[in-house]
């Protein structure tokens, strides 16, 4: 017992790995950075045409003169998204207050990379001084006793939440993204805020990547619309090859669904989840799905990644004078029809833009994105000399898959 106690006492003091250099460790030269999937030109298209375009419109709408744009994201060690949005904010002459989460599963080398990137980006006067990237898992925001929740609350509410995931939004790992997002919405986004905000979600959209326990929940949520609206039912039946009724009982049904259709179905599930969530409280918030994209990762021939975007807007209701004393004409309240919104969401998901195809069919756009990527990656100190050939190689490989 005494020995055990002594051991604990010892651990209290020496409970640290021996100090060591974090970068460069093995080699005395700076390691060459390697290209990652999110360096491809198509991701730049998303950054530029989805994120920046929609954030730019939001900035104009919010008329941010006395406060910064508040941005929550998962920026990665190169802070690529923040670098792009910083440029947008510079053009718009708006300060950018960002909070990033990085779950810290990366190596010590990347920690140093993050430190350098933060120094590069946060030194800009356009960046709000108390911006930061925290070494925390975003999903832990779901626990209000977590450090992640404390940080998120302190920096919010946000004009933009950008959940740029590599995996699926529907994951088996706890805590779930649903809980984290709901917690942010409940405690940070809608509490005392009435201005619209944007939600970007990049997620894997494959049945094998998702948590199949989520399916019954999605099914019930869609079932309500299927019951109420024949149009919705007909279009969903068409999308799912008349499998909707069987999905709830048998996941296999979805596995047999064509991947492109599954991607649309999954996008619809997420859009509908967000739609019902935002309509569930008071005041209600309208969820509008904006232009969204899909593309392929790994060796997939059909789109298996989604880049979704949503605009959330509070619906204001005028007061009703039950006594009739105020005889001024009552302002007509905005009609919020969940069925109609669901149809809109379905329409948007059906028209997801396949950006791999788009860039294949538009070489000029592809070249423009290569150049933009090059510029962005150069600012993050990538050896861009090799970039065009790498991007070209990846594009050719993708084209081969598309032709299949």
């Amino acid at each position, binding site marked *: 017992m005494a020995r055990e106690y002594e051991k604990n006492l010892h651990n*209290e003091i020496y409970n*640290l790995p021996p100090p*060591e250099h974090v970068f*460069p460790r093995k080699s005395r030269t700076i390691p060459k950075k390697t290209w990652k999937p999110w360096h491809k030109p198509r991701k730049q298209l998303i950054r530029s045409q989805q994120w920046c375009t929609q954030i730019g419109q939001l900035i104009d709408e919010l008329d941010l003169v006395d406060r910064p744009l508040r941005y929550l994201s998962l920026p990665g060690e190169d802070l690529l998204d923040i670098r792009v949005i910083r440029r947008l904010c510079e053009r718009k002459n708006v300060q950018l207050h960002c909070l990033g989460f990085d779950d810290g599963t990366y190596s010590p080398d990347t*920690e140093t990379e993050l430190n350098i990137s933060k120094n590069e980006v946060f*030194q800009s006067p356009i960046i709000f001084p108390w911006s930061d990237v925290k070494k925390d898992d975003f999903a832990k925001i779901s626990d209000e006793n977590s450090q992640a929740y404390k940080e998120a609350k302190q920096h919010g509410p946000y004009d933009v939440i950008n959940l740029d995931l590599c995996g699926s939004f529907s994951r088996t790992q706890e805590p779930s993204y649903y809980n984290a997002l709901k917690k942010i919405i409940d405690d940070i986004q809608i509490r005392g805020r009435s201005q619209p905000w944007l939600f970007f979600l990049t997620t894997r959209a494959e049945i094998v990547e998702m948590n199949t326990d989520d399916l019954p929940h999605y099914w019930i949520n869609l079932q309500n619309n299927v019951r109420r609206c024949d149009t919705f039912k007909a279009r969903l039946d068409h999308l799912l090859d008349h499998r909707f009724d069987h999905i709830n009982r048998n996941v296999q049904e979805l596995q047999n669904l064509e991947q492109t259709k599954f991607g649309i179905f999954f996008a619809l599930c997420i859009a509908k989840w967000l739609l019902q969530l935002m309509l569930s409280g008071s005041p209600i918030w309208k969820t509008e799905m904006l232009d969204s994209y899909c593309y392929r990762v790994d060796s997939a021939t059909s789109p298996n990644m989604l880049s979704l975007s949503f605009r959330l807007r509070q619906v204001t209701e005028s007061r009703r004078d039950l006594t009739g004393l105020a005889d001024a004409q009552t302002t007509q309240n905005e009609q919020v029809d969940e069925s109609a919104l669901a149809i809109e969401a379905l329409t948007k998901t059906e028209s997801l833009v396949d950006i791999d195809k788009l860039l294949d069919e538009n070489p000029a756009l592809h070249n423009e994105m290569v150049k933009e990527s090059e510029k962005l990656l150069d600012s993050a*100190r990538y050896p861009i000399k090799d970039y065009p050939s790498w991007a070209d190689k990846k594009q050719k490989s993708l084209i081969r898959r598309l032709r299949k």
Partner: protein
Amino acid sequence: MDPTQKKEINELAKKIAKNADAGKITTEELSTSTLVFKRITDGIYRQPSSALRELISNAYDADATRVVIETDAPRFDKITIRDDGIGLTDEALCWMIKYIGESPKRGWDGVKLGVVKKDDPKLSPGGRKLIGKIGIGLFAVSQLTKQFQIITKTRDSNHRTIADIVLATHSEDDIDKPEDKKKKKRPFKTGTVRIWRVPAYDKSAHGTEVILRNLLPRVRQELSSREIWVLCDPEQFILKGEEGELRKPPRYHIGCIHKDIQDRIQQPPKLPWDIKDSPKKKFEKLVQAVMNEYGLSKTNPSLEETLDNYLKLLWTLSLQVPVDYLEKHPFEITKHDDIMTFKLGNDKKSQAKEMVLGSKSIRQIMKLTSPERGRTQKFRVVVDGVELLRPISFSNMPITSHAISYPLLFVGKDRPSLDNIPEDIRGGRLAFEGYLFWNSKIVPKEHIGVLVRINDASGTLFDETFMKYPTSEQTRLRQITAEIFITEGLDAALNIDRESFNFAHPHYQYVSAWVHNSLRQFATKHKSIGKEVRESKQQKEWIHTMDAFERFVRKRLQEIRADSDFETMSVDFIKEPLDIQQKRKAGKLVFDYNQVFAEYVHGRRKTAKQLSEQAQFEAKVKAIARILDAFELFDNMTYERQQSLLSEIVAILSFEDKK
């Protein structure tokens, strides 16, 4: 002992012997062992705030206008300090690494390295008076962690320089044994550094960022107030079965992290500010919360009982670093602040003189200059979204029942002429400005004492002994908070930790003598004001009492003589016989004072209290005389007999049992 040391010692020993044989004295310069510096490098500080203070000082000296500190509280995994100063050139960075503790500031080496002004090495490039020493920051950092990074960039450079530093822990085991003498002596390793550059496209950007990684467990425990939470909730922190009295958490705290799960908050924070408040507002609310403790929890609120270690760290830093005052600098006080102000003299027999401020501030009247921040006046320090401001304010001070109900401010400045003192012992030039602020209650109690700032920064806190002021007047001293702003000199009197002074240094001795002389002037003035206030108060009370007594007597007289034509006659006691006669002829009721009050015993010297008692006694005798007159008892009496009657009454009323 290495071969060089051995050679030096042998040569000196031979020289001593040779000189002794020749009957000569050996003269030699003293030198310090490098081992001392090695030990110092390992850490000389007691508080985590010291490291942050030194890094903030370095940012200030680098002409930064803003320092942003992120501590990752309450987890304290790492701390980042980012400034927008001029950044370190590669040469300056190399100096810092190779000559830890030997700051190039304040010397011509600093000019070459670009860390000081070209024509004055005592100033920063932007003209600020220097407050830090580059290498000292490293000492301080070693107390918090053994591994940290510096990322720095100078304006217009096309690269950033990154230094990754790992410090070694000093061990006495490293001492070579005598039998190892053949073995090559192991050099003491302070640590290792890896330096590299990355390209920078933001040419105009400049500044330095220090990232303290993997804070030592002890530091994390201290910053997160683990010792407090252990006593508040031992079940959570120590072995079950331990017993002890539970203590209450401080009123305000940042909460605490779960003992096993680093990212889980066990105890939610209780902060004095709202999460959405601006950085400045948060600090204002912190100060207000501490001030509000007076009357809420204790008559002598302390930071110790009100704040946890982290919030105390914010407070300590805000007192030490050169930031603006919460409201305004004490020298900006004007007549509108309702503070009685006095000018202190510098001679041993000087007396404090009241200053009439008129429309001017104290600074304008006394031509005071502190703080001097060169071109870049603005200097903001924000820790975790809370802007540090000096938590000293002279408005809305706590009120007590003390006779003097308003605060007093004593201000002085000195630039002693040390020309007559030999250069090698006077320690250079000395100049300073300062104030002593008196209020019947100083909140928090940690602000009682004198705080010495060198060029507007301080490593020390309030010295409650007032630099060892020899006095028994403890009550009065505990009502004073004072600051001394050194504008020239004293820096050499700071010990290497920059948190204490070398008492033997002549500058320290002079400043302490000045403070003591000022306290003497304060005490004299304070006593005299106190006396005036008390007398004035007693006078007012007496007038009030007499008015009430007069109304009472008139009412009694009217009841005695209900007939409408009766006029209540006033009574006078007069000392001059001729006056008595004249007034009696004019129909007045007057008596010889000396005869009537012959039996009323009192000394020649009277206190204000005795004077008041005497006046009240005389008023009562007058009232008795008026009552007797109302009953017409005087009508058939001679003046002499009237006076005898009153004299007997006085004798009876003033009887005291001397036993």
